């Protein structure tokens, strides 16, 4: 299968994922939302390779388990790429979408996990859409190389800038926003026992471990990976990903 064909297949699969996020299942919806990029033949091929399920006279369309796994991988790559570009490389706007779109089709699962680890396992893309969880998030892998770490990992008295807040609870995030605990703000860790106390915009605020672990901050990254962490990561990723990652940046 050529690269353009892969891309075409992937676009359809992704669209089906978005539909799932919105709770839509009709073929008509797929047609209207894809416009002229919709291709009947691709649907047929996807059905034949068992990536989608069709029912009710091919009016209802859904991803199969295999298809969902593929879509998950694509969406994860796409949204993590957006985070990488927006947070680390300082890009935005149309750049974000364009690069992420190209990136998602070619990148391997291991590399995606490495980026995820580097960014501190974000849960939302810059547009606020959820990033599907990967193996590395479940293991909560960390490396010395991680640019973004939970606020709870700071040393006492250290200051850091908040990168993002990993929180799906609307009420909690509004409460944090109301206290000015938000991306871009500089915070200082005062105390970590019996509970965490931070200073933010002139106010001292006490927080639970559960809350503070979701606040991710920029760390002054050391360009070295500790031996233990390297081992842990290599074991998980067959030792390929980090070197691959650097390769990507050299390009």
């Amino acid at each position, binding site marked *: 299968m050529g690269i353009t064909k892969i891309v075409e297949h992937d676009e359809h699969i992704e669209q089906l994922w978005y539909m799932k996020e*919105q709770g839509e299942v009709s073929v008509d919806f797929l047609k209207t939302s894809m416009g002229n990029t919709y291709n009947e033949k691709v649907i047929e091929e996807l059905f034949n390779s068992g990536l989608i399920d069709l029912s009710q006279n091919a009016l209802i369309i859904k991803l199969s388990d295999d298809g969902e796994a593929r879509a998950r991988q694509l969406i994860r790559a796409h949204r993590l790429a957006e985070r990488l570009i927006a947070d680390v490389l300082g890009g935005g706007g149309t750049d974000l979408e364009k690069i992420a779109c190209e990136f998602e089709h070619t990148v391997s699962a291991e590399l995606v996990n490495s980026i995820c680890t580097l960014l501190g396992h974000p849960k*939302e893309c810059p*547009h*606020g*859409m959820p990033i599907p969880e990967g193996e590395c998030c479940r293991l909560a892998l960390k490396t010395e190389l991680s640019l973004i770490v939970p606020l709870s990992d700071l040393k006492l008295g250290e200051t850091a800038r908040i990168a993002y807040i990993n929180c799906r*609870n*609307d*009420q*909690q*995030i*509004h*409460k*944090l*926003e*109301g*206290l*000015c605990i*938000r991306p871009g703000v500089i915070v200082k860790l*005062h*105390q970590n*026992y*019996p*509970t965490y*106390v931070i200073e933010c*915009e*002139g*106010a*001292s*605020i*006490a*927080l*639970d*471990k*559960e*809350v503070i672990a979701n606040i991710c901050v920029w760390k002054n990254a050391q360009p070295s990976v500790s031996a233990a962490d390297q081992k842990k990561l290599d074991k998980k990723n067959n030792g390929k990903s980090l070197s691959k990652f650097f390769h990507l940046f050299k390009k």
Partner: protein
Amino acid sequence: MSNCHAGIQPTKNSSEAQEKVVSPQSIPDMNNLKKVAIIGLPNTGKTQIFNNLTGEYNIVANYPGTTIEMKRSVARINDQYYEIIDTPGLHCLYIHSEEEIAVRDMIFSERPDIIVQCIDASQYKQSFLLTAELLELETPMVVVLNSMDETARKGIWIDSVELEKRLGIPVVECIALRGLGKEELKKAIAKARTGSLDVKYGFQIENCINELTSVLPFDLDFKYKIASLYLLNDPFVEKYLESKFGAEKILSVRVAFNKFRRQLKGNVRQVITDKRSQWVNNLTETVVKQQKMIYQGFSHHFTQASRHPVLGIPIFLFFMAIVYLAVVYVSGAIDKFITFAAVTPVTGFINSWPLPVFWKDLLIGPHGILTLGVFNAICTVLPILTVFFFIFGCFEDSGYITNFTVLSKRIFAKIGIPGNAITSLVLGFGCKTMATLSTRSLTIPKEKFIAVFLIAFAIPCSAQLSISMAILARVGLSAFLIVLGALVVSEMGAGIILNKIIKGKTESCFIQVIPPMRFPSLRAVFIKTYYRIVSFLKEALPIFILSAAGLFIFDKTGLLAMTKQALTPMVVGWMGLPKDIIDVFLLALARREAAAGLILKMVDSHALNYIQSIVAVVVTTISFPCVANVIAIGKEMGWKTAVAMTVMIFATSFLLIGMLNGLLKVVCGV
């Protein structure tokens, strides 16, 4: 029976408060008064400003959440009468808890004519986020920059003239605690006007909000704000609309909202909050100057030490020791003085009268209304409460209590108390009623039940704590420590067991702003103590006298002897207390301070031995939930739960006290 004891202010409902301050005749038309709502983040000084404007007194303290219920009063400002509304703290118009929802519902449904936003000038950024939201309500506003004395210490300079220009509304500088800026605020209220907010959320969202406002019921106020809150998934906005217009009418609105919500790509919340904080940043860049170097003085270091896991403990013990010594020695001295100056002469005078024995007994007999009523209240209980309230007031105003919350979090977490319930539990040491009401900020039923139970169970409130201290000090410091240990063990045990029995999830989400510690203003503490004492005398003194009279009648009719006879196996057998302690229990039903005063007398006259004194104090602390507390439980949890909880507490404490008695006997080798 009393509605709340003197610990901390009774929460009044609105009509009561209104009647109290201004008699209706003096105001032409109560219904046409302009409403002024004082709104702001927690612990920014709203109640102090309310007090300054109305000339009323409500308890103020340096910790978030002092005000739990809204208070209203009428004040004359510039020859015009206004209804002033004091509100509990509000973080933003997107709601997190029930206290906050009450404030928002008040704004939405009553439509105040003027909003006075109270800002802690030393933490301005957080408050300006709320300003942005309040400006969207398009209601005449005044901004009050409170605590202007703190800004200097923090190296902050706010250009209030420029701020006034930027916001388009009057801005007043003030130091409410010292009454500075009061007149300026009054003038500003007369000049309040609708400000301008130049925040645009982008074409897509604006368009969406505008279209949504057209779907909302025609006669709804604040459509723009309500539409944007709906778009942000605020969980309470739909409920508000339903209660106002009925579920059917709102169904079509919901359908439209869901449609729009799907159309919007990306994260609406993020866009909206980003724009708002951008606005705040732009605003503060022009109106606020921040020094780079600040001298972190003693209070800063002391604050940090007071919540430090190691240094915090000696500081806490030091404070406890101060309370103990003051309560025991200072109030003891006052007691002696009053007895010498008033009680002895009065008793002597009455004794010298040629009165029949019955009347003498009624006045100064062992159950006399003077002995057990007036003298008990004024000589025994009042000095202790006065001293304690004074010291407690200092703690409240210094900001120590919230720092103590941080320090004690670990212990509470051990017994399964989730983070957000801890503040309520600590407040229980002040007044259990108020602490129970403050649990409305807890949203998870299991957390709320456990917190309410533990507050009602073995936590002594300020009045109990101080009198228990005084009693136990006469028996010995060891007795005090034993009681403390017994209470801590029972409380922790109850927490652990409840956590095991009750099914359901607890979610830890502790986010608490810690106020900076400061040296308390003695003037403010004196005023606060004075008001607490006055309210104690007003509420409790009649009950002291009535319960003494009741006991006197009980005694004279022989009912008392019968009751004693009936309860003897329980009291003497199981609890190991003398029969006469039943007088104490009967008084405790009416007012626990009265009972404690009687215990004190029994200790003094050696009617109770070492073990009995300890047991008696524990009984009065645990077994008799105060009536106001039970009412508060009923309010928060429903009457069934309130009754069930009271029964549970009574049964558990009965068991525990028997066990304590047995254990003490074994240990002391009696």
